[in-house]
């Protein structure tokens, strides 16, 4: 449904050219959730903004193709993009307060999202109440009359989700939708997003810096660093057998309830300066497995080295961009996760076996 091919985004700021995205390939099918994981400066948000066409045209150079059901979004004019935005492509952000108009009641704002894409006002109002109830808000009729400031963070985010998914978009871009929420609410919102996208067949591109969020919400993951995708594949495969040192580092950085023997180790060093991307692998300066080749030649995405017990199940191919792909024996940051989980996702249903712990 959504296909990104060779996307390159350059931002021309007053302080030099920033190569925010350096060749990204991604594809998203109906009802699927694909997580784009990376730290700040990795280019993940910029990728989403490029899909939504929200980058300032004068300061941005976009190369490559973004295909939505065959239509290349990079070729469209602003007016055409405006019709698609909100209708076929919806976007939600980290801070729900920023997306809601503080002086309008929330019911009206959800209805507005519907009328903007061709629904009568009366119909939209009724539908809005239905949506508010769909997203799990209690007493939607009453709540529709509230102003945003009267709602908690989680409730606001649900309103934003209602407004975004109301017009039944084909693609939902979710940029850190749960980062600002409490842990218990985070879980509820992630589940809500999963349910609604599966019900409506919406493809979701979930952007997050937290691999754990990706693990529980997405069927496919692409890990980004320095503007490129360094590893991609089914979530289960990546969590079980990460191949890129950065992914390994990210996994090691997720805190666990039973810390017992495993110290928390993240990725050493600082996030990359997107203005000064070094030749070769962007991760080389921070990589403990780097070899000479890593510094001079930028790695390409190649199929992950297969390992003994890895079930070569179908689904998304597991690719890693590394000259020195990490093999399980070398991963000393502790077991990434318990083996044998898969996530039922999309119309394809389950794939792979669930082995006992």
């Amino acid at each position: 449904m959504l296909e990104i091919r060779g996307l390159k985004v350059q931002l021309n700021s007053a302080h030099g050219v920033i190569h925010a995205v350096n060749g990204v390939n991604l594809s998203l099918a109906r009802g699927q959730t694909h997580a784009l994981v990376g730290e700040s400066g990795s280019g993940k948000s910029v990728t989403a903004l490029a899909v939504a066409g929200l980058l300032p045209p004068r300061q941005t150079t976009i190369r490559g193709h973004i295909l939505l059901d065959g239509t290349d979004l990079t070729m469209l004019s602003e007016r055409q993009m405006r019709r698609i935005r909100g209708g076929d492509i919806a976007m939600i952000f980290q801070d729900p307060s920023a997306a809601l108009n503080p002086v309008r009641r929330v019911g009206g704002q959800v209805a507005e999202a519907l009328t903007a894409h061709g629904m009568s006002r009366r119909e939209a109002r009724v539908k809005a109440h239905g949506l508010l109830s769909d997203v799990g808000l209690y007493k939607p009729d009453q709540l529709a009359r509230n102003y945003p400031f009267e709602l908690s963070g989680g409730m606001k985010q649900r309103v934003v989700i209602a407004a975004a998914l109301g017009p039944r978009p084909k693609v939902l871009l979710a940029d850190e939708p749960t980062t600002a929420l409490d842990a218990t609410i985070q879980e509820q919102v992630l589940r809500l997003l999963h349910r609604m996208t599966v019900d409506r067949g919406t493809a979701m591109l979930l952007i997050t810096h937290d691999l754990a969020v990706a693990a529980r919400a997405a069927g496919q993951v692409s890990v980004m660093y320095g503007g490129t995708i360094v590893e991609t594949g089914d979530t289960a495969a990546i969590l079980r057998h990460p191949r890129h040192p950065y992914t390994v580092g990210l996994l090691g950085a997720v805190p666990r309830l039973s810390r017992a023997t495993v110290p928390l180790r993240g990725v050493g060093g600082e996030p990359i300066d997107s203005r000064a991307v070094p030749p070769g692998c962007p991760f080389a300066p921070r990589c403990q497995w780097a070899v000479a080749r890593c510094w001079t030649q930028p790695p390409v995405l190649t199929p992950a080295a297969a390992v003994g017990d890895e079930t070569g199940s179908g689904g998304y191919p597991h690719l890693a961009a590394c000259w020195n792909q990490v093999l399980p024996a070398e991963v000393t940051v502790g077991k990434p996760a318990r083996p044998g989980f898969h996530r039922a996702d999309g119309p394809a249903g389950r794939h792979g076996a669930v082995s006992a712990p």
Partner: protein
Amino acid sequence: MISSRVGEGQLVPPHDLTPAPTWTDYPRKLLRTRTGAAGAAIVGFLVLVAVLAPVIAPDNPMAVSPAARLAAPSARHLFGTDDLGRDLLSRVIYGSRYSLAGGVSIVLIGTLVGLVVGLIAGYAGGWLDEALMRVTDVFLAFPSLILAMAVAAALGPSLVNAVIAIGAVWWPWYARLVRGQTLRIRSQPFIAAAVVSGARGRHIVPNHILRNAISPVIVQMSLDVGYAILTLAGLSFIGLGAQPPTPEWGSMISVGRDYYLSQWWFVTFPGLALLLMVTGFILLSDGLLTVVPSSRGIT
């Protein structure tokens, strides 16, 4: 969470590795904007004129010459002469000094008083804040020109007194502005961190609050110089400011009022000079508004 979210027309790299804009950066950035460059050029030119007045003025501005009174502009007197035969060009050139000095002094007085009031009110809070703000409100409620006239009349008409009078009605706006900034800054965690380290107001106000509050104040100052100059000329116009024979533009226009139908140059040239100076400052401040990032809330 740091996200490279991009707003309309605004680009923020994920973490900004640009060196902090120091004061030396602003002049360069300013000169790159059209209005800033134009304003700077005009103001610069006028400042030069004021400084070099004794050198470039063709005649003594005070030299009376009854024979040549009310002479039209000619090669001898480029701007003509006034009712006492004095060379108008020289008077206009010297007049730039009074307007510049006067305008800047007014704004400086206003800013200094406003800073003190605003910082104290904003940082201390409580009844002190209330009291100071009510006083400020009273001043703001008065039409400033009338108030300035009253003060000037009470002090006695002279240029210095006019400057003091106008400064006295200028400060409330700064007090409000500074107080608003102080309140905003005070709620930031870095102030709390300073408090926890043992810092008292004595340390926090000048080192943290003032430093963060000052840039909108500077922009406001530049905006105001033009209006201050105009107000000063206005007071002189009605006789409460500069007194003859001081070649201040406002008073020159006032005298020339009686002659403007036939001796048009008498009113026109001082008027044009005033226009030029005020415009220069407005353009300059417009440039500053675009360049200085934290100049929200300036009207």
